[in-house]
């Protein structure tokens, strides 16, 4: 496909301006000569239909949930009901100005207030801030709250955050940016948190631990209560990375597991688009003793009116301009109300059942290094055996899946599994879709043995074949000319 810069023709325009009927003044006289550029910018010169066709064709090269199955592990790429989109586009929401008065914003404030209460109930937390603009932004917010908590107690020695080696890559990054030193602990042979390693890592410098439960391997940390107890006894706080909360909705809560701070990704669990369909939203919830540290604004309901609360002097301040990504909040609110507690419970049941169906059938053709044939909402296979036997890598198999019309699973993550293939089907797929996907995966495994060259050469039926990602990363070309 051509670039938009290569479309159109010199002088072609999508508009026609009538002749000027008022006295004209030179631009330099208005802006000053030194504010004018010497040459006009090299913009595309296209008609309206050129532009529409270009971008429509471009969009059709994209793979999306609206076009096919997208089992991208760790990412919870579930289908987003279209009604959420309609609701977030209601004029009363999308045409609001963030500086409107409290009086003129009561409807939006009610939504904000009720979404906060809903999330607090779902996660068992006292309060939530809806400001963070993404998951990692929520992690940073949570880390800043933990830092502020220790500071407020003049407990200045607590500088270390513990993360297991199966954690999301953003965890250590967020802790570092918040000023902590990161200590990584190795998982046990079963892929779960190793309590002995945790015991060794804990000390008077421990500010807290970040944990995902279920973990990135799709396993439920069965020792979570013991771990929480150990972290608390050492004086630390426990942070819940809610990226995998799709597996536990209304089944259990981070609060029951002993967590003090949690973030959840509305753009994963609560069905607001994700992965280029953003923006995201990563609300952060806290237990009672951490409420004073939440960023502002928070909204209260007093005397029949929604009002902005006065900022607590212990608050970490602003985390984001105005109120966060409000449109995303509307979608999540709609999703939570449409499902209700029973519906959300079913969401997690189906998400876990779907993953187990795939896990059980695919572990016959691929290695399942952890989990004893069971998983939560996702699981991680290893392609190492196939690579050793037939010289076909996980990357080759992923590219073959593209030919077959699937978005490949996450590959080479988590790092503790060699040649990892991480699959998360989500609750929104039917058993028929899952069966077709199993057939495709089994075909790929068979081809790896019978015709490896076909997999090395994939994909053949797409606009581009195998891209040289090494060259692209080493010498990126990010400009049209």
């Amino acid at each position, binding site marked *: 496909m051509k670039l938009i810069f290569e479309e159109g023709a010199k002088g072609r325009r999508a508009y026609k301006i009538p002749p000027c009927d008022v006295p004209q003044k030179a631009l330099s006289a208005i802006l000053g000569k030194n504010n004018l550029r010497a040459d006009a910018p090299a913009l595309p010169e296209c008609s309206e239909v050129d532009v529409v066709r270009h971008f429509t064709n471009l969009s059709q090269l994209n793979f999306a949930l609206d076009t096919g199955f997208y089992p991208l592990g760790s990412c919870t790429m579930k289908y987003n009901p279209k009604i959420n989109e309609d609701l977030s586009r209601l004029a009363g929401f999308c045409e609001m100005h963030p500086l409107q008065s409290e009086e003129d914003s009561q409807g939006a404030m009610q939504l904000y207030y009720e979404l906060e209460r809903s999330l607090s109930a779902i996660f068992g937390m006292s309060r939530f801030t809806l400001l963070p603009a993404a998951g990692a932004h929520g992690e940073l917010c949570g880390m800043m709250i933990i830092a502020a908590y220790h500071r407020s107690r003049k407990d200045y020695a607590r500088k270390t955050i513990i993360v297991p080696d199966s954690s999301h890559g953003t965890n250590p990054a967020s802790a570092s940016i918040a000023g902590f030193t990161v200590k990584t602990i190795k998982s046990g042979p079963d892929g779960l948190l190793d309590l002995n390693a945790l015991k060794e890592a804990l000390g008077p410098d421990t500010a807290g631990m970040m944990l995902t439960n279920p973990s990135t391997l799709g396993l439920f940390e069965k020792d979570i209560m013991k771990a929480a107890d150990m972290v608390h006894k050492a004086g630390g706080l426990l942070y819940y990375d809610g990226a995998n909360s799709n597996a536990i909705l209304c089944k259990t809560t981070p609060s029951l597991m002993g967590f003090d701070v949690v973030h959840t990704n509305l753009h994963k669990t609560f069905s607001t688009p994700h992965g280029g369909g953003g923006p995201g939203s990563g609300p952060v919830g806290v237990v009672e003793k951490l409420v004073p540290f939440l960023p502002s604004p928070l909204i209260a309901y007093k005397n029949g009116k929604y009002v902005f609360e006065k900022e607590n002097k212990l608050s970490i301040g602003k985390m984001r301009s105005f109120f966060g990504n409000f449109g995303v909040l509307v979608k999540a609110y709609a999703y939570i109300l449409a499902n209700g507690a029973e519906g959300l419970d079913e969401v997690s049941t189906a998400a876990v059942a779907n993953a187990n169906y795939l896990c059980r059938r695919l572990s016959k053709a691929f290695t399942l290094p952890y989990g004893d044939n069971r998983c939560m909402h996702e699981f991680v296979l290893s392609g190492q055996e196939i690579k050793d036997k037939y010289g076909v890598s996980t990357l080759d198999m992923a590219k073959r899946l593209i030919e077959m019309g699937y978005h490949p699973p996450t590959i080479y*993550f988590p790092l503790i599994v060699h040649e990892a293939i991480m699959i998360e089907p989500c609750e929104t797929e039917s058993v028929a879709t899952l069966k077709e996907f199993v057939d495709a995966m089994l075909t790929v495994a068979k081809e790896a043995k019978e015709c490896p060259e076909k997999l090395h050469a994939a994909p053949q039926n797409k606009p581009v074949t195998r891209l040289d*990602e*090494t060259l692209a*990363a080493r010498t990126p070309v990010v400009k049209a000319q």
Partner: protein
Amino acid sequence: MSKVIDGLYYSKEHEWVKVEGNEALIGITDYAQDALGDLVYADCGTVGAAVSAGDAVAVLESVKAASDVYSPVSGTVTRINEELSDAPEKINADAFGNFLFAVELSDKSELDTLMDASAYEDFCKEEH
């Protein structure tokens, strides 16, 4: 099977240590470069930094992942391999011929906690 060289010390994090007098050159093993895949970025750390054994000193990024490289020994970083920032692929071509950083050893006895070539070879087989 990836290459292992005699006469070097090896860590469980897949770093090699070559001792020259009181200085230790540190790089990643052939097994590590193979596991990481094509490297696209190398930050070999900061000269003058004081490090304890186990501290992250360098960062390598491949098409698959970004990874910290730890110093298996304590001391002060005396030099870094500046060539690698423009040509990280050299590590893929020859992992043992391209050190990342050098450390002036503050405690030579730490070397005893590391593996020799044959112990490391066994360790890799287990990891596999």
